[in-house]
Every structure is written in C-alpha cells, then in structure tokens.
C-alpha cells in the first residue's frame, strides 16, 4: 500500500486537522467531538442539517458543510459509520432551536448509529428528523434485506434541503423535500479498480485487466456482477436503462444529472461520459436542466464512476440554484 499518510490509525484524525487548518473562518473542527461544523454554528432559529458517514468519500460530507448546505458533518473511520457520541455532539452543537435533520445514507451501520444518536438527542430535548438516502438502483429494494445503498443522491439531498433550511424552511418541510429528492433519484456505478483502505493495506478485490465491477457502491465492495469492459457509450446506456427503469422519467420531465467520479477517474473521462449521458437522455426526451461533473462522492482511490439522475420540480431547481458556500460546492457566494 502506498499512501500519503503517517500511521494508518491516525489518518482520519490527521486529515481532520488538515481540514481545520485549510478552512479557518469557514469551518470549525471539534477534534474532541470529532465533527466539522459551520464556523457560525449554531444559527438561532434555523433548522440544522447534520450528516456523516465513513471517511474516504470526500468531499462528502465535510466538504459540504457551510451556508446553504450542511451545518455539521461527522466523519467516521474510513468506510465506517460515525459513532453516536459524535453525531450527538454535532447535533447539539448546531441545533438552533428549530430542530435538526439527519441526512443518513442507508447502510446498516449508519442507520443504527444515527438512530441511537437521535434517541439520545431527543432525551436532551433536541428534535431530530431523519432523511434516509437510498438511491442506488443496482440493489433490489426489499424489506427483507438492508435495501438500497445511499450514494450520489446524497449530494442533491444535502444541497436542496440545505437551501430550504437556509432560507427559513421548517423542520418538517426541510425533511420532506430531502425525502422527495431521494425518492426522485436513481444512481448506478461502475468500478474499474478496487480502492485500498489504509487499514486493510491492499485493494478490496482484484480485477483482470479487461473486466469491471458493475453495480458497485462507495465502500470498495465488489459489485453485483463482473463484466468485460465495454465502450463508455455502452456502459452509459446500460446504467441509464437501470436508473430509468427503477425511477421512471416521463418525456419532457426535467432532471438534474450528476456524473460522479469515485476518486481515481480523470475528469477528462467524466466529461466524456457526461457527453454520452446528455446524448442518451436527449434521445429519450428528458431535459437536463442542471448537471454536475466531478469527484463528489468518492470511494478513496477507486477508479470508477456513478451516474445519478434526479427528477426535479421547479422548486427543487430553485433551491439547487440558491447560494452555497462550502469547500466542495460553491456558487452565488
């Protein structure tokens, strides 16, 4: 394993120190509590958004803390959900009296730890609403299993719900629009290589030089199946088929598209892929009204990408366009 680190056990703590040093004035990092929050938190009367998850997905979530998006993020160990103490501390730190929304990606660990924190917060008088993100259509939806994973749509939920909270939305409204964005989203991902966690020290899986993993998540796990590499335009078509089957989009509907790199894929390829996505969606009469191309919800150094399509209302587009000022996403401010 070759990484720019010191001791594998200190990676998250030392990266947190770097984040603190890199964003003075904008972010506050509580090293004891292990969370990142807006420098101006708590904002009295504002609904606060807290998210978190394992580290290794940067800029998600710490890079999305700031006006117009999250109030706090709780980074767990690499690919390991944060613990309830962290989440509770962050929740209390940003609560401005109007309640707190937890944006939780649907993984067993994240769900359980956030749920425990929400119960503890309730005991201390903080009202918490949870928005569960489960957009990855590679996984079947079922009440008998852990269900679908939360992936790229997390960014859209955090941006759009965050904008509503910023402009004074009430707790129930902010949670509701977050859930609507999630329901309207579908994602699908491919991996060309496995990533390497500092703790494991070797790639999560080996892949022959002409094969890819299809339907992967963001934790370095293998996908639903292994296939031969195909040209980008074929992969895009298959991914969009899967997304649109699970989350149908009618002719004339407007969507936001995220072409998201998993960490090790050059931006050049992401743009090429976006070009293919635009072509296919145009053929199907779908109007892309906004889009984002880049590395936003990553899986360490995995070479791969995910495509997210979210059917949006005019109100969602308005909130998407609202000012945001975070390390990872910034416009209008």
């Amino acid at each position, binding site marked *: 394993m070759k990484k720019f680190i010191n001791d594998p056990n200190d990676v998250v703590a030392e990266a947190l120190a770097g984040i603190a040093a890199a964003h003075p004035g904008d972010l506050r990092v509580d090293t004891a509590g292990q969370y990142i929050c807006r420098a101006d938190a708590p904002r009295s009367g504002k609904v606060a958004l807290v998210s978190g998850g394992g580290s290794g997905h940067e800029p998600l979530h710490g890079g999305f803390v700031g006006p117009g998006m999250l109030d706090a993020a709780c980074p767990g*160990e690499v690919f390991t959900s944060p613990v309830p103490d962290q989440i509770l501390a962050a929740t209390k730190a940003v609560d401005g009296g109007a309640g707190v929304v937890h944006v939780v990606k649907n993984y*067993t*660990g994240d769900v359980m730890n956030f749920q425990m924190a929400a119960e503890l917060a309730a005991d201390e008088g903080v009202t918490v609403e949870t928005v569960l993100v489960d957009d990855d259509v590679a996984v079947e939806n079922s009440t008998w299993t852990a269900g679908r994973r939360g992936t790229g749509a997390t960014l859209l939920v955090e941006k759009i719900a965050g904008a509503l909270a910023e402009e004074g939305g009430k707790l129930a409204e902010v949670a509701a629009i977050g859930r609507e964005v999630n329901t309207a989203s579908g994602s699908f991902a491919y991996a060309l290589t496995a990533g390497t966690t500092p703790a494991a020290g070797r790639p999560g899986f080996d892949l022959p030089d002409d094969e890819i993993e299809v339907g992967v998540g963001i934790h370095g796990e293998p996908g639903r199946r292994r296939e031969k590499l195909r040209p980008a335009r074929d992969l895009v078509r298959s991914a969009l088929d899967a997304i649109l089957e699970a989350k149908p989009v009618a002719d004339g509907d407007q969507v936001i598209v995220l072409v998201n790199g998993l960490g090790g894929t050059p931006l050049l390829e992401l743009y090429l892929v976006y070009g293919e996505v635009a072509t296919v969606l145009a053929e199907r009469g779908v109007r892309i009204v906004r889009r984002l191309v880049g590395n936003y919800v990553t899986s360490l150094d995995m070479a791969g990408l995910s495509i997210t399509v979210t059917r949006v209302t005019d109100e969602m587009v308005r909130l998407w366009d609202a000012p945001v000022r975070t390390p990872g996403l910034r416009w209008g401010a």
Partner: protein
Amino acid sequence: MPDVDVALATAWLRAAADAVTADADLLTRLDSAIGDGDHGANLRRGFTAVVAVLDGSEFAGVGDVFVRAGATLISKVGGASGPLYGSALRAIGKALPPGESADLADLARALRAGLDAVSKLGGAAPGDKTIVDAYGPAVAAFEDAVAGGAALPEAAAGAARAAGDGARATTPLTARKGRASYLGERSAGHQDPGATSTWLLFQALADVTAP
C-alpha cells in the same frame, strides 16, 4: 456458587480483546470479500478501548462490567458491528442481577437478552448471514448445557463449538442484511465476518473458563 463474577467478566473481555486483535487480519480479509474490509480494525479498536476502560475502573457489580464495555463499543467502533455488539453487551449487563456475581442460569438468560438486543436492533433473522447465525446457536447450546446441569467450562465450550459451526455454516448463504447483502448471490461462498467474530468471542469465554 458464584460462577460469574467481576473477575470472570473482565477476564472474558480481555481474552476477547486478545482474540480479535490476533485475528484482526482474518476478519478484515473476510470483510474485504463481501464487505468493506474494516471488521478487524473495527473490533480491534473497540476492544482495545474496552480494555482501557477495564484497566481504569472499579466495578460494583458484574453487570456493570458488561454495561460499561458495551457503552464503550458503541462509542468507539461505529459501523454495524459497534452498535450491535455494544447493545448486546449492554443488554447482557442489564439482564444480570445486581451485585458482585451471578449464577449460570443468570448468565444464560443474559446471553439470550444480548441476542434479543441484536435481533431487535439489526432486524436479522437466522440465515441472513450475520452475527445472529453464530450467536443464536451459541446461546441455544449454552442454555441446553445449563439446563442439563453442566458447569461453566462445559457450557462455554459447547457455546463456542456451536458458534463456530454457525459461523462456518454462513458460507453458502446469500446475505440479506449488512453490506454483504449488496452483493446478492455473489455473497454466497464466503464466511460471514461478523459471525466469525462472534465465534471468537465465545471461544474466548471457553478459553478463560477451561479448567
């Protein structure tokens, strides 16, 4: 006859810490195949913190040892296994009678309470390829042994054996809970990391009670 006292509880948890540390690589390798490759690191981190708590504390009662250890796992591990094992230990501790020690029947009931906590929190049924598939048979074997009049060493050894069998039996299963469920059919053919660590924990109990 104080079968289960503070000394035994701390000895068990220390042995558990040694076991998950020694086999952290194995657990991580199993978790790399069908999960995200952190199960070994998670439990090592958690049980190392548990040992630190044991080192720095006086315990009024045996239940307390488990409650504090469980709270520590919940605070330090994260992921799926932190809340699950943490809740199990807390439930075990809370189910034990107050005071310095408890008897074998108390421990059997407490272990069952721990299993119930895991099932309630995680929602996994037997056969879902999780911790439950080792923990369930272990508790059943422990209860049977106690009902049959066995002493602690024998009951613990039986539980460890059942946990091991349960862990191995997860190999052909298709996971329905946890990260391995995302792999669908591809999760079959690999032993579940959590069931394997459960076996290590019961084996640790068997080891510290062995005559």
